[in-house]
C-alpha cells in the first residue's frame, strides 16, 4: 500500500513538473510573440497592437504590425514548432541526438530539389514546394533503404544520412554554379532559413501540416517513447515497431519539409530543440511537445536577434546556425571521448 502511494506521488510529481515546463514555455512563447509585435524599429503600444489584431485600422501601426511583424512572428512560431517536433521525433526514434533531419540530409533534400526546380526546371510557387516536400520524403526513404540490413540501426542511418547530405550539398553547389544570377536570389531562400518578406497566407500550409503530421506524432508519443527502450523491448511491450517507425518518419519528414518550403532550412533548429527541451524537462515524460515549443522559441528569438540586436541584419538561419554549430562540435567531441561509437 505504501509502495502504491510512493509510485502515485512520484508519478504526480513528474506530471506536475512536466506541466510546469510546458506551461512556462508557452508563457515565454506568448510573451516573445507579443514583444516582437510591439518592439521593432519602432515601438507600438500594446493597445494599438490589440486593435490591429482585432482588425481595426490604426494609422502608423496597421502596416508595421499587421503586414510586417505579425506574419513574421506567426511564421517563426509555426515553422519553429514544426522543426522542433520533427527533429525531436527523429532523435527519439533513433535514440541519438545526431539523428536530426538537418544532419542526416532530409532538409538538404528539400533544398536541393528546390534549387534544381528553380534553376533547371524554372518552376516556382506551390509547385516548387510540392517538389521539395516530395524530395525530402524521397531522401528519407532512400536513407532508410540504404541503411537497411536486417533491421535499421540508428548509427548506420546517421552515417548514411551524413554521406547523402554531403552528396546533396555538392549537387546544390554544382546547380548554383550554372545558375543565371537572377535565379540566385530565389534559390538562396532555400539555402538559408529566413522569414524575411513573410506573408500571412503562408501560415496556412504550416497550420495544416502541424494539425495533420504534428497531431499524428503527438498521438503516437507513447509508442515513440517506448522505442527509447530499444526495438526489442518496445516490441515486447506491444509496440508495433515497424509501423510506428514508418508513421514517425512520414510525419516528421512532412513537418520538416513543409516548414522548409515556407522558411527555408532554418539551420540547426530541428537539431537543437530536442536536446535543449530534454535538458530542461529532465526525466519527466516525452520530450516531443516541449521540443516543439523550444523550436518555436528558437526561431522567434533568433529572428529578433538577427533583425535588431546585431550590427547588420541577418536572416534567422544565420543566428541559429551560429548557435547550433558549437553544440554539434561538442556532441562529436563527447562521442569521441566515449570511445568512438555513436
Amino acid at each position, binding site marked *: 500500500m505504501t*509502495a502504491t502511494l510512493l509510485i502515485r506521488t512520484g508519478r504526480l510529481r513528474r506530471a506536475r513538473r512536466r506541466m510546469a515546463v510546458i506551461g512556462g514555455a508557452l508563457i515565454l512563447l506568448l510573451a516573445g510573440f507579443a514583444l516582437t509585435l510591439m518592439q521593432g524599429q519602432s515601438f507600438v503600444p500594446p493597445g494599438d497592437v490589440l486593435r490591429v489584431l482585432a482588425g481595426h485600422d490604426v494609422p502608423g501601426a496597421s502596416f508595421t504590425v499587421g503586414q510586417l511583424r505579425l506574419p513574421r512572428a506567426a511564421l517563426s512560431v509555426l515553422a519553429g514548432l514544426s522543426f522542433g517536433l520533427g527533429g525531436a521525433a527523429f532523435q527519439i526514434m533513433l*535514440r541519438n541526438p545526431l539523428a536530426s533531419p538537418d544532419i542526416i540530409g532530409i532538409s538538404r533534400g528539400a533544398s536541393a530539389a528546390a534549387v534544381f526546380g528553380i534553376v533547371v526546371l524554372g518552376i516556382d510557387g506551390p509547385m516548387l514546394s510540392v517538389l521539395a516536400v516530395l524530395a525530402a520524403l524521397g531522401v528519407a526513404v532512400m536513407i532508410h533503404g540504404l541503411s537497411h540490413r536486417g533491421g535499421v540501426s540508428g548509427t548506420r542511418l546517421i552515417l548514411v544520412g551524413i554521406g547523402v547530405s554531403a552528396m546533396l550539398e555538392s549537387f546544390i553547389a554544382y546547380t548554383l554554379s550554372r545558375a543565371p544570377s537572377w535565379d540566385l536570389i530565389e534559390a538562396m531562400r532555400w539555402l538559408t532559413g529566413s522569414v524575411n518578406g513573410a506573408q500571412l497566407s503562408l501560415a496556412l500550409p504550416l497550420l495544416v501540416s502541424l494539425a495533420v503530421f504534428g497531431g499524428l506524432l503527438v498521438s503516437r508519443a507513447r509508442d515513440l517513447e517506448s522505442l527509447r527502450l530499444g526495438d526489442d*523491448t518496445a516490441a515486447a*511491450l*506491444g509496440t*508495433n515497431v515497424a509501423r510506428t517507425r514508418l508513421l514517425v518518419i512520414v510525419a516528421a519528414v512532412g513537418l520538416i519539409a513543409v516548414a522548409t518550403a515556407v522558411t527555408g532550412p532554418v539551420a540547426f533548429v530541428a537539431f537543437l530543440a530536442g536536446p535543449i527541451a530534454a535538458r530542461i524537462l529532465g526525466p519527466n515524460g516525452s520530450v516531443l511537445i516541449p521540443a516543439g515549443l523550444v523550436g518555436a522559441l528558437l526561431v522567434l528569438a533568433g529572428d529578433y536577434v538577427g533583425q535588431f540586436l546585431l550590427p547588420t541584419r541577418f536572416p534567422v538561419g544565420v543566428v541559429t546556425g551560429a548557435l547550433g554549430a558549437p553544440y554539434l562540435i561538442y556532441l562529436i567531441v563527447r562521442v569521441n571521448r566515449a570511445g568512438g561509437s555513436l
Partner: protein
Amino acid sequence: MSRHSLSVHGLVAGYGDRTILHGLDLDVLPGRITAIVGANACGKSTLLRSMSRLLTPRAGQVLLDGKAIHKMPPRRVAQVMGLLPQSPTAPEGITVADLVSRGRHPHHGILSRWSPADDAAVAAALEATRTVELAERAVDELSGGQRQRVWIAMALAQQTDLLLLDEPTTFLDISHQVEVLDLLTDLNHRRGTTVVMVLHDLNLAARYADHLVAMVGGRLHAQGTPEAVLTAENVRAVFGLDSRIIPDPTSGRPMMLPIGRHRMA
C-alpha cells in the same frame, strides 16, 4: 496457474540468408519453469526471439493459445506474454519508477488514462523485486544486479502469465545470479507464472528449472526433467565436453563437473 499455452511447431528461422533454426518443435509446460541450454550460436536466443514474436519464422509457427503469434496484434500478445531481451537499454536519466511504469504500456491505448490499478501493478512489481527503495533513483546509477532486478520489475508490471527471459543472469556476479533465479522461482510459485529462459550455466539451469531443453545446431537435442537431460552423453553432444554428473548435495538435482585435460585426480 497459467491459463495460456505456448508451443512451437516445425520452426525454421534465421537472419538474412543464414538459417539458424532447422525445424523445431516444443511445447512449453504451463505454470512451470523451462530453461533452454546449449553452446554459443546453437540458436537459443533465436528460438526465444521467435517465440516472443520479435523474429518472424521462415516456416512453421509459434502458437499462443492455439493462434499463430505472428498474426496476432502486438499489444494483445504483450498483455499475455512478457519478454526481457538480452541487453535492454535504458534511456539516459530515467528513474526506476518511470522505467517500471513502462511495463503498463500494453494495457493502454492512445486515449486511455493511467489508473490506480496501474500504480498498484507497478508497486507490486517493485515489491516483488525488492526495488521499492530504488524507485526514485536513476537507472544508470544502479549496480548490475540492481539494474537487472529493475528490468525484471518492468516485465512483472506487465502482469503477464508468460514470462520469457534471454540470459537474465549474464554479467551478474554469482550472488546476484542466484537472487534473480530465486525471484523468478518465487514468481512461479506464487502466481503460477510460466517462465521460459535461456541460461548459460548448466548447473543453475538444472537446479532451478522444472524442464530442461538442450539444443544443438538449431535443433532440439533433448528435453525433459533435469535428471533426464543432464547426462554425460548429452553434455558431450551439446557442448563437446567430457563431464561427470553427480547429485547436487544441496538440491538433489544433477550437477555437472567438467573434465578437462589438466588437474584431474
